[in-house]
């Protein structure tokens, strides 16, 4: 899944662009299992693996990072929205967080629209943070405050 061309640059792995071997992926999963400062989850629908999700609070439990990846074949099926909702609700319910954030590459318009639909606001533009398709790309940090999350739950 992680080598699917449509996921390049949006898979929330240390190495965003390089093709990964099965061994690379195994090592990565082993590392995740050791991680005591983050929650790493599979997204499963109808008993099939459709993606993966992360809540990482190693920097600060006040301000966790959230990341969600849905395999291209399963996108636009509502899995992403439901998984994101569950993930964000879990984090604000179980962590003493005041806000949450994620990072999205500037060319990834679908993810920017998706994060806006979940109530995240863009917090700026960090220039030349990545390399994608033969150019440097910028990163857009997005954030949601606890009060904003509560407002999205009210309706």
């Amino acid at each position, binding site marked *: 899944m992680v080598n699917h061309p449509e996921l390049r640059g949006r898979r929330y792995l240390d190495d965003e662009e390089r093709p990964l071997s099965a061994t690379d992926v195994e090592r990565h999963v082993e590392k995740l299992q050791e991680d005591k400062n983050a929650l790493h989850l599979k997204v499963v629908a109808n008993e099939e693996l459709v993606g993966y999700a992360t809540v990482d609070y190693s*920097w*600060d439990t*006040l301000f966790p990072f959230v990341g969600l990846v849905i395999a291209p074949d399963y996108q636009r099926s509502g899995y992403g929205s439901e998984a994101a909702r569950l993930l964000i609700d879990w984090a604000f319910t179980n962590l003493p967080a005041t*806000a949450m954030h994620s990072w999205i590459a500037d060319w990834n318009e679908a993810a920017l629209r998706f994060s806006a639909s979940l109530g995240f606001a863009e*917090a*700026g533009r960090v*220039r030349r*943070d990545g390399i994608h398709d033969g*150019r440097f790309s910028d990163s857009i940090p997005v954030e949601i405050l606890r009060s904003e999350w509560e407002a999205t739950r009210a309706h």
Partner: protein
Amino acid sequence: MPIEGTLVTLREERDSDAELLAALRNDLDTQAWSKTLPPDYTVPMLRKRYEAREFSYDPLEGRFIVEERSTGTAIGYVGYSGLQRRHSAGIGVMLSKSAWGKGYAEEANELLVRFLFVELGVQVVHLWTHSGNPRAIGLAEKVGFKVAARMRHAVYKNGRLLDNVVMDQLREEFYARHPELEDELGNPFGTD
């Protein structure tokens, strides 16, 4: 290989710097991130970190001690981390309070930024601080950084919920400040 400025010199870290580094780490004013406290870093801890460093041709971080040129006294630390070779790096600075207000931090930052662009050939330098530290933001602006992003309620320090402030400086912005230097490397991809 010390990097010489007018007011300060950046040199390699030495065993004898552990006391200064412990003092900087344990000071709520010079340590930007309260979440890394309680301030009980010990000299042996810092010495251990120093001794654990190994020789490498491609280190992804660099640590320098800032020396006052007039006296040869060590007054602080500057460094880069998270180096993506020929692409990007983040920087940080900590100076003893007795050395504040003399232009030392500004020159130390400028020397480091220059090293990153002119020797390590990066395309962008990043810097993270918070809204409770307007001195750091002003200092970074003086050496060519711009505020790139602000994330609300991201930092808690001194009883206040603060913004995380990310700043950046592009290669061409550095060279625009230095018309005396020629950029033979440029942006290998052409334009952004």
